[in-house]
């Protein structure tokens, strides 16, 4: 059977398609069919010839097989230093082989490669900073995922996730109406406590256009209210687009480059339509990477920049605290040991380490902040990056991967972990569920709101 009913090379472009795939519980049939899926070797090889250029080719060629990257990969460390987890080995034995064999690989090979690409690498890019040749295996893995996606070898959840972006321009089945509706509902719920709280939708030329993660709309809409409250307290002139509000991209994890482009273009269109001075995204790591760091390239923007200056939530928060737009009541600062999860996606891959530490200075009583070790751009992945968190098939491997972060957190002695990244937040929650080390974790918004000095004119009556 070349193309299965559930598992095939066709991307999902309709709501019905998504529902059909969803109806295959846990992807049981999907993975069954995958065992029969044919490989289009010609297409594979042609794609490689068109897209694998000097950077990647050189990386694969000059790799000294020296193993210096081994120790840098948390998955190598945490899996008993299994040599099969050495970054260079992982990529040479997959992408390297496909190229060596000019795309003539069999089904078993592709399924093994899928397992490596999604369960042995979170695309955290840490190894790239430890290789003397500057070989970034994480980048090659995301390239490899693209090849696998094209051939239909992609974990079930991510095929669905990419489909969601194609259909809804959001990672979940949240429509534009749902978004605006939910945001308004949330603001209504909180406006008694914060008089004047509003959600300005589609306002042109605002200072800030705010974008979110669809999961906030679907499951934790309080986050939307919190964002509104903080903008309101800071006296910002902000807006949300009624279309193009979703910043995340499961398509990026899936390797569905076409969907990545569609998704990010929807946000850029909103920027072009509303012409905000700046775009600010919510506390999410991969969303920032997708929309701000990689997005411009998918959309073909030659200068590598989104249409409007785009910053991460932590940059805005740091700025608001530093300039006094938001004021913290020092007596309410965190007075317990607390640590911080550095998200690879915007710390290692966008250099925002200072912003988060500025925030810490405002909200944590001096002496109570403990850095993880290592930290900043050398921090380890939370264990759930690159889509790992959501893939049922690789749940076991994911749970092992969490051990690194567990031990890092335990070593700090802190019971509170600040995690300004949805994915990291999830992984840390899961690690508590799995290993019960007695920690709490939080985004920054709720913590900051609790310690805010509310300006007189914004206080509720009574």
């Amino acid at each position, binding site marked *: 059977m070349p193309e299965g009913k559930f598992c095939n090379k066709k991307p999902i472009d309709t709501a019905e398609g998504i529902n059909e795939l969803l109806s295959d519980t846990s992807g049981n049939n999907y993975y069954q069919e995958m065992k029969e899926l044919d490989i289009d070797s010609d297409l594979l090889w042609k794609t490689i010839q068109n897209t694998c250029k000097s950077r990647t080719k050189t*990386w694969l060629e*000059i790799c000294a097989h020296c193993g210096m990257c081994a120790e840098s990969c948390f998955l190598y460390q945490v899996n008993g230093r299994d040599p099969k987890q050495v970054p260079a080995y992982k990529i*040479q034995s997959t992408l390297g082989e496909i190229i060596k064999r000019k795309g003539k690989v069999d089904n078993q090979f592709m399924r093994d490669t899928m397992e490596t690409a999604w369960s042995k690498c979170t695309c955290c890019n840490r190894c790239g*900073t430890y290789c003397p*040749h*500057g070989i970034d295996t994480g980048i090659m893995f995301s390239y490899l995922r693209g090849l696998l996606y094209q051939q239909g070898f992609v974990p079930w959840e991510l095929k669905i996730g990419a489909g969601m972006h194609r259909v809804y321009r959001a990672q979940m089945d949240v429509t534009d109406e749902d978004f605006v509706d939910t945001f308004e509902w949330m603001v209504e719920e909180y406006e008694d406590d914060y008089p004047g709280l509003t959600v300005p939708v589609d306002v042109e030329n605002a200072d800030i256009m705010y974008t979110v993660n669809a999961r906030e709309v679907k499951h934790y809409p309080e986050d939307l209210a919190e964002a509104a409250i903080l903008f309101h307290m800071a006296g910002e002139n902000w807006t949300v687009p009624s279309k193009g509000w979703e910043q995340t991209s499961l398509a990026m994890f899936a390797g569905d480059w076409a969907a990545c482009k569609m998704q990010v273009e929807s946000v850029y269109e909103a920027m072009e339509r509303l012409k905000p001075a700046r775009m600010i995204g919510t506390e999410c790591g991969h969303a920032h990477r997708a929309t701000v760091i990689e997005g411009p390239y998918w959309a073909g923007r030659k200068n*590598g920049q989104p249409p409007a200056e785009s910053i991460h939530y932590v940059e805005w928060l740091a700025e608001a605290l530093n300039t006094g737009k938001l004021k913290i009541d020092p007596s309410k600062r965190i007075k317990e040991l607390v640590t911080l999860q550095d998200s690879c996606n915007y710390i290692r891959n966008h*250099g*925002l380490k200072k912003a988060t530490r500025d925030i810490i200075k405002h909200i944590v009583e001096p002496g109570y902040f403990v850095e993880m070790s290592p930290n900043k751009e050398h921090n380890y992945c939370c264990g759930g990056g690159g889509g790992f968190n959501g893939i049922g098939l690789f749940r076991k491997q994911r749970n092992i991967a969490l051990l690194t972060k567990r031990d890092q957190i335990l070593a700090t002695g802190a019971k509170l972990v600040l995690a300004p990244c949805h994915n990291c937040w999830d992984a840390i929650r899961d690690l508590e569920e799995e290993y019960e080390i007695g920690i709490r974790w939080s985004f920054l918004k709720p913590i900051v709101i609790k310690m805010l000095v509310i300006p007189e004119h914004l206080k509720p009556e009574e």
Partner: protein
Amino acid sequence: MHDLLTGLFFWIALGVFLIGVLARLIMYFRGLSWQLDRVAYTSHPGAGFKGAVRSIYKWLIPFGTYGWRTQPFITIVFFGFHIGAVLIPLFLLGHNLFLQEKLGISFFTLNPCFADILTWTVVISAFFLILRRLVLPEVRIMTTLYDYFILGVAIAPFVTGLFARYQVGDYSFWLNMHIFCGEILLIAIPFTKLSHVFLFFASRAQLGMDFGIKRGGMKGTKMAW
């Protein structure tokens, strides 16, 4: 024989080496694609240049990066091997005399005693490089015969050079072998993994530009290599 090796063969080797290196470098940089690599190289040349330079020079300093510092053993072996591997061919007295005669140029020359030490360091380090490949599972799993072959090609000129230097057996045989191996090495550089001799700079520059332009450089954060 000697004449042939220092004459025609030398010119061929040098020519192949220089043209090969140049051609490959050009191919490398022409093959960079802002969109595929997702780095806006040409839009931000300044940021890219700064990132590239940092990325290269940090890694040329022994223990200059987190990578080097976390693995002191390989770092010592690596620099033990490479300092000699780069300095000896260019700055050995004998080589300079030869270059002077052939090309009319000569560089500064190394103290002969120091040069001896360096050469021995190269060979001993190479021994450890091989040992590492045999002993450490994380290196063994990736090691292919090709890796040993490359190592062999790389140290052959040094080993034969030492035989000649200490006049073990027939001096002129070892000298000819040395010259021959050196020329093989020169020819091998553009076509094998030894291309890293120059592609190292290209690859590091590329990643440096990535960090300098896209991954934080333009946010004012220098990558803490």
